[in-house]
């Protein structure tokens, strides 16, 4: 029995980190949106580690915030510890990470969603997508309701045909004890969307009162908390610590003795797992010479005893898990509250997506998050936001909103998965970016706020505030270039005390701040008329001065990069009709359908000679008079 449940502009399937961002974005951009979730209690759930951010990922959160997404504000409001990673290295790789109160995080996001205009949140399982003439026309749910819509965004996480492995115990299930979604996969396949099987896993949650922290090393948060969001002024909380302990040879012995009971090694798990989230058994088998592995105990929240045991993800049977956990110092008497498990799930081939995250096969159908073969809350949220923005652009018949590799980690993420495909769950790392020095977490707002404003997710009020910050940075750069420090004994003494060399004649203050050993704040005595500036302004001044030469070099590289990105390949070009391309290149080009020569150049199997041939073929087409009408840029 089916019935019409109501018309929507957009239906978002899944209310995890991707779906929440996607639905908020479409609703905020004026589209009537329905957000479907299997369980209202699992909105924005964190089924794995209780933290947001980290290397590369912290950058993504900052970028999501600058574009008008919710994740940054949500973690700022619900964090219980914060840490800036990599402070011993340069600013390009500083990375923010915060421990979240998981329940708090979920509740706040749910509240924001519930109170958003144009948005309805519903507990229903989407079972079918309805497609007509290659276009999405609706979504059907398990109760029989049909929601006609003009666009749909699938953010189904790890739920599609989810299967749980705890040693020999194996059953169909979603993450964290939730139900799987068993029907939607079939509907996708029936509509010509090919699926693949990926795998991931999570460690046990243990009862903190059964842990002996005195045998572990305490890991405190930072004294000064840097917020993720531009809109958060400051965060004053009592931080909760994490703890560090280690496995030992006894742990490894138990693992080795029970290896035949691990579904990863019996061949029961066929999905491809991520190399950066290896289970403890994988670590022990692959790195035999390591006699210990790090274990971090992370609290799951302020109102629960549940603690996350980072480094101990496993698909071994529960009895083995308990035995091996109890070999770890401080965990001798540990009691499990949830056991570790591996989960296998369906995901699509992201090479079937356009840069807008719209399907190449079905118009109006967008995908975001783990369904695209990625991993991580932040990666998911970033895609959800972009899919949401583009669904709105699509409905409003606007150009797709595309961020390139030189502009943001979000651009790197999307370009990587749609151009190269994924052969394991994709995790962001700073080393994936060619322009790491430009794509810093400290300048995400400077890079992306104008785009967020243009698209309509950044309010005028926030934009004004942003422009003021930008002006303050520029003014201060000009000002300190004009402040001349004289070679007086007094000044040289200060320089000596900073282990810096003396000056023999007058030097601009900006030149002194360029020196690696001198910090802006240490130069106050040279600078009597110094204005009061926000720390984030000072941070920019300092970074821009100290790394100017390197930044300029990368900007030149970006210029070259942009030239290739701007050489568009017309939509629907039949690559097999181009004489001179090698067969391998033709196959790859037909599959990926790159939108520019730049994107084509990143496809493995396309050689420089192929690109030359392609360039010539494009020029040939351009010169034919009948091709000259409106074909210089694609959709």
């Amino acid at each position, binding site marked *: 029995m089916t019935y019409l449940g109501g018309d929507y502009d957009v239906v978002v399937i899944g209310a995890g980190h991707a779906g929440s961002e996607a639905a908020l974005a479409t609703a905020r951009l004026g589209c009537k949106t329905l957000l479907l979730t299997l369980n209202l209690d699992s909105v924005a759930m964190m089924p*794995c*580690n209780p933290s947001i951010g980290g*290397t*590369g990922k912290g950058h993504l959160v900052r970028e999501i915030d600058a574009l008008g997404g919710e994740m940054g504000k949500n973690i700022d409001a619900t964090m219980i510890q914060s840490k800036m*990673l*990599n402070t*011993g*290295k*340069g*600013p*390009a*790789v500083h990375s923010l990470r915060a421990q979240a109160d998981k329940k708090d995080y979920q509740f706040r996001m749910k509240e924001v969603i519930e109170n958003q205009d144009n948005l309805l949140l519903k507990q229903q399982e989407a079972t079918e997508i309805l497609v007509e003439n290659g276009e999405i026309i609706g979504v059907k749910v398990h109760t029989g309701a049909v929601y006609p819509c003009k666009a749909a965004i699938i953010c189904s996480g790890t739920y599609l045909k989810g299967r749980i492995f705890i040693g020999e115990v194996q059953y169909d299930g979603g993450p964290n004890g939730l139900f799987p979604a068993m029907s939607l996969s079939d509907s996708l396949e029936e509509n010509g969307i090919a699926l693949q099987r990926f795998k991931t896993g999570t*460690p046990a949650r243990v009862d903190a009162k059964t842990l002996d922290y005195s045998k572990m090393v305490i890991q405190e948060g930072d004294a000064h908390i840097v917020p993720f969001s531009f809109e958060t002024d400051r965060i004053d909380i009592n931080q909760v610590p994490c703890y560090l302990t280690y496995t030992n040879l006894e742990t490894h012995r138990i693992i080795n003795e029970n290896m035949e009971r691990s579904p990863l090694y019996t061949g029961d798990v066929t999905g491809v797992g*991520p*190399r*950066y*989230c*290896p289970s403890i058994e994988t*670590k022990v088998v*692959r*790195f035999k010479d*390591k006699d210990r*592995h*790090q274990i*971090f105990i992370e609290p799951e929240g302020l109102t629960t005893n549940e603690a996350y045991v*980072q*480094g101990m993800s496993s698909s071994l049977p529960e009895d083995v898990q308990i035995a091996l956990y109890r070999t770890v110092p401080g965990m001798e008497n540990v009691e499990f509250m949830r056991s570790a498990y591996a989960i296998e799930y369906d995901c699509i081939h992201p090479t079937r997506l356009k840069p807008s995250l719209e399907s190449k096969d079905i118009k109006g159908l967008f995908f975001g998050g783990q369904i695209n073969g990625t991993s991580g809350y932040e990666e998911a949220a970033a895609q959800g936001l972009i899919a949401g923005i583009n669904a709105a652009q699509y409905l409003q018949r606007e150009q797709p909103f595309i961020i390139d590799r030189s502009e943001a980690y979000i651009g790197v993420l999307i370009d990587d998965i749609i151009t*190269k495909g994924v052969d394991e769950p994709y995790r962001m*790392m*700073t*080393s*994936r970016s060619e322009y*790491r*020095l430009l794509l810093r977490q400290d300048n995400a707002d400077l890079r992306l706020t104008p785009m967020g404003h243009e698209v309509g997710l950044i309010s005028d009020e926030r934009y004004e505030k942003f422009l003021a910050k930008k002006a303050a940075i520029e003014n201060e750069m000009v000002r300190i270039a004009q402040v001349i420090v004289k070679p007086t004994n007094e000044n040289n003494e200060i320089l000596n005390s900073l282990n810096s060399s003396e000056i023999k004649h007058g030097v601009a203050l900006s030149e002194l701040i360029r020196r*690696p*050993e001198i910090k802006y704040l240490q130069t106050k005595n040279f600078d009597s008329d110094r204005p009061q500036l926000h720390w984030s302004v000072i941070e920019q001044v300092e970074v821009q001065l100290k*790394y100017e030469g*390197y930044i300029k*070099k990368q900007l030149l590289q970006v210029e*070259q990069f942009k*030239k*290739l990105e701007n050489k568009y390949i017309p939509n629907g070009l039949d690559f097999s009709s181009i*004489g*001179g391309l090698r067969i391998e290149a033709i196959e790859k080009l037909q599959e990926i359908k790159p939108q520019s*020569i*730049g994107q084509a*150049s*990143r496809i*493995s199997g396309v*050689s*420089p*000679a192929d*690109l*030359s*041939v392609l*360039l*010539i073929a494009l*020029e*040939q087409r351009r*010169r034919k008079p009948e091709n000259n009408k409106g074909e210089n840029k694609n959709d």
Partner: protein
Amino acid sequence: MEVLLLNEDTIAAVATGLGGAGIGIIRISGAKAIEIGNALFKNPKGKTLVDAASHQLLYGKMIDPITKKDIDEVLISKMKAPHSYTAEDIVEINCHGGIVPLRKILGLVIKAGARLAEPGEFTKRAFLNGRLDLAQAESVIDIINAKTEKSLEYSVAQLEGRLSQKLEELDSTLVGILAHMEVNIDYPEYDIEEISYEFIHNAVLKLIKTIEGLLLVAETGKIYREGITTAILGEPNVGKSSLLNTLLMENKAIVTEIPGTTRDTIEEYINIEGIPFKIIDTAGIRETDNVVEKIGVERSKKLLNQTNLVVFMRDVSKPISPGEQELLELLKNRKTIYIANKTDAIGNDDQDIEPPWIPMSLIKEQGIDLLKSKMVEMVYDGTVNQDADYLITNARHIHLLEETRESLENAIATMKTSMPIELVSIDIMNALESLRGITGKAVGIDIINQIFKNFCIGK
């Protein structure tokens, strides 16, 4: 991706064949062509290429802007865009000095900011800039395909053996360093040892040394192709001319006979076991100044500076003269083969001739094979592909190796100024990318694979 896709940079190549023709043309195309040509050109009346009219020949000399030395007399011309073959600014340098100055000038042009053109690239630019019609496009594609494949073949041929092994070593060291740096950056909280600047510094210095070794080998390869400049020295009437004639007569593959840069010597090309030797015949000197004292030590010195190898000849039937003594003194630290000629004139006493002297009797045709094998042995010990394109491929490799070295030197400079590790990583990454330009392997994913292979990380 390589910049060759962009038409913004300036390219250069030898436009005529490298078969040893007397006149060669170097063509430069692109926005910086005139600037580059101008910087290397000197006209006796002070005319510059910048001010010269388009499509007019200008006489002058090419000079090395650093040493200020003349390289060759040339006729130079510029063709302003769009009235040129490629529709870009083009400079053409006509020089007559044969392959050596041609290469030297090309080297200077590249140093001044041009990039060595890929096969078919002038034609490609001509097409992309609208100089060729559609019908010609297909043939351009063929050229690119054919030439790319061909040059790849050469690359592969060249990459076999020791060179490729060395490149592999360089590559894996760089990947190893990068993976370690990147794991420190992306996984700061795992108990993985932090790679130290001291370690990177030492490893990079070692890499630079290896690259310099390779460049030296490449230099040998270069000499090898152009011919090893060899001078036959000795007092008058010791038999130098006869030796040269004997070598020439045996050698049917005389490549060319052109006046050298010094007008009073003759250059002859001979080929021994596939190795070209450019023999500077000092016969000219002897004929103009019949007395060896007049040639003078100064003159000999000058001549010696232009040679890779010296064959010194004396007449064993006569005692060593003061002039010969002086010359022998000059030759002490050079690659020299010593010939004791006219053993026929001393009967059985040739038993007394000891190494390094090679006994020879041109009349009896003795000792010539020994000389030839000595010549080959002293230069190199193998055979090399003699196709003209070999030179181009090789020059590209040299260029990329030099770029690799430069990036590594930048890495050291970055570390010296206490810049953070992610900046050093940029330099190391650039080095790897240049190195990979030789083999064409992509970089990105390798580093990440290496990280997961070498380090135990992950939650």
